[in-house]
């Protein structure tokens, strides 16, 4: 009897509340795009293709956060149709920049942006995909790193764990040989508490890390905050520094009460 023909693994790319930057990273893999497409079947990738095929998918890459009632139902369906589900980027992994609403009054936000807020359906929160369905892997970054994305796709298609280190930006920064900004220039830097992945880009350009990749595995926030203060930041500055693209995840590790009322509340 002839061996069954092994079909190419099927890839799905899905979008929730996001800027499209993380899925664009896939199209930015100019050198790898055509070879990759020869190995896999791009079954659902609406930004790139009108050929939209139904599931099941071997690997689903999910971009964006859950922020509308419709999203809740859609993410469950995608999960049920996917062998592996990987979130790509800060929106899908930590709620993204739109999670700043989680610390505010959404009704008031809606009324600020829209003359007729009643037309706008939205949830009061922007939440990571993992808050709603089990996720096999979370790839961090705002945006994600191209090299890491290729590693994740090849790993899952080969049925192995992706080799994505969990250490902080400082490790990458030291390896890159960049002079430490807080030490040498008193420039505030979130490198010590931020997940590596960007290649310590900001310090190399002379600016402090602003936390695109969210918190690293073992952070010492109680030590970080006095350091930022000594680099001249007020508590409000520190709160804003932590409250950007990964606000939800950083807020979860802020020492309670340390940064005033808002810090305690979040």
């Amino acid at each position: 009897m002839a061996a069954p023909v092994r079909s190419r693994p099927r890839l799905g790319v899905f979008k929730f509340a996001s800027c499209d930057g993380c899925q664009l990273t896939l199209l930015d893999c100019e050198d790898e795009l055509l070879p990759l497409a020869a190995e896999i079947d791009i079954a659902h990738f609406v930004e790139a293709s009108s050929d939209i095929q139904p599931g099941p998918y071997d690997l689903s890459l999910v971009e964006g956060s859950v922020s509308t009632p419709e999203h809740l139902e859609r993410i469950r369906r995608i999960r049920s149709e996917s062998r592996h589900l990987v979130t790509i980027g800060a929106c899908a992994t930590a709620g993204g920049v739109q999670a700043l609403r989680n610390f505010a009054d959404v009704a008031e936000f809606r009324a600020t942006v829209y003359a007729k807020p009643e037309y706008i359906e939205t949830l009061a929160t922007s939440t990571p995909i993992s808050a709603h369905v089990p996720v096999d892997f979370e790839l961090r970054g705002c945006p994600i790193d191209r090299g890491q994305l290729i590693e994740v796709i090849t790993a899952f298609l080969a049925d192995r764990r992706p080799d994505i280190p969990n250490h902080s930006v400082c490790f990458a920064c030291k390896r890159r040989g960049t002079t430490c900004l807080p030490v040498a220039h008193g420039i505030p830097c979130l490198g010590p508490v931020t997940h590596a992945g960007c290649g310590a880009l900001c310090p190399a350009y002379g600016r402090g890390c602003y936390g695109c990749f969210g918190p690293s595995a073992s952070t010492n926030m109680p030590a970080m905050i006095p350091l930022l203060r000594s680099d001249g930041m007020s508590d409000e500055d520190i709160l804003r520094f932590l409250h950007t693209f990964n606000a939800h995840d950083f807020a979860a590790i802020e020492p309670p009460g340390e940064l005033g009322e808002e810090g305690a509340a979040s």
Partner: protein
Amino acid sequence: MTHRGSRVLHVGALARVEGEGALRLRISDGTVTQAQLSIYEPPRFFEAFLRGRRHTEPPDITSRVCGICPVAYQTSSCHAIEDVCGITVDGQLAALRRLLYCGEWIESHTLHIYLLHAPDFLGCDNAIELSRTHRADVERGLRLKQAGNSIMEFLGGRSIHPINVRVGGFHRTPARTEFRPLAERLRQARDDALATVAWVAGFDFPEADCDADLLALTEPGTYAIETGTPTVLPHGDGHRTRTFPLADFTTHVVEEQVPYSTALQARLDGRRHLTGALARYAISGHQLPPAVREAARSAGLADPASGQICRNPFRSVVVRAVEVLYAVEEALRLIDAYELPPYPAVDVPPRAGTGHGATEAPRGTLYHRYTLDDEGLVTDACLIPPTSQNQGAIEEDLRRIVQDRLRHGEPTDAELTRLCERAIRNHDPCISCSAHFLDLTVVRA
């Protein structure tokens, strides 16, 4: 005889555009009575959460509105805040901003031309399928796109959400010699850009005319990209343009909320208008250098210098290719003239007030306004992206195209969906800035 009942067509997933949108068509006795483009990109509330942020923060935050044109958001933000603070960034720092923006134009336009738009003209669902029959063309596109990305990566640190931009200039400015490998790459990209113009010129273009006023920024002596004055070319009025001060943008371009869309819709002085490649080329095309104009002419584009205007949305793909060629040339010129500025950024101390900034995002004019308090905290923010401005013109375009089609008998839903998706992709809408599915509904009685 064809059956001429009433129908409502709903296209539920708009593919190969950036973001999410749907289309609802109402057809009654052979007449299209309604074409509603609905953008269901979830609201993200940028204008609300910008309040309370320090004046240095909007460029990094607003870049996250759109991963396809982050430089546009960063630059409009910087200009608006510098305007509040009474600072002008000029000389080599302004030149570097323009260079970074050229990188975004090359990357974004090439993405649109090769990966999203060309498959329409060549009867494919996507660029991967296209690469089976047009391998060398797709490879050229990817190479050219990479050249745009390499400007953004070199100068901005990365191509999506560059990190090197700040209010007042940059965090780090490169030395002249560091540009050498980039310049080498751009000289190769020039050949790819020229070949792209010739390639798209050979596509088949249906006749069409866009019945909308055109809006683009203009700048004396140059093709406006990162700065300029709003300039309007009304429909059917020869080549007489009018301008208005940027500070009056929101009195002329008024956003309205429509119940079927999360993106606001803007009208220009009460009329529908179009911004983007067609508008820029019609209004500023005479400013392009002779070699680029010659490439445009040989690609079959009307020459704006002799008062001719191309309003055919299908030909926007040619205009984009011409703009890519221009951006490559312009990037090389800027690199050639570059001298290391004395400091990477001008100091921008905050002051209370309101400021305006507008730039030409690849898809059209992007306007930002901020109000700061005494401490330099944002108290009010307003962002008007190109897609919200273009929606009215796109809807009219859809109405006209479907109406034309109905003259030749009753199309199937699948056929209408294809037709409408094409018409929408002509305008390169970036629906995230307000959304890829065309969710088409045809309402038939």
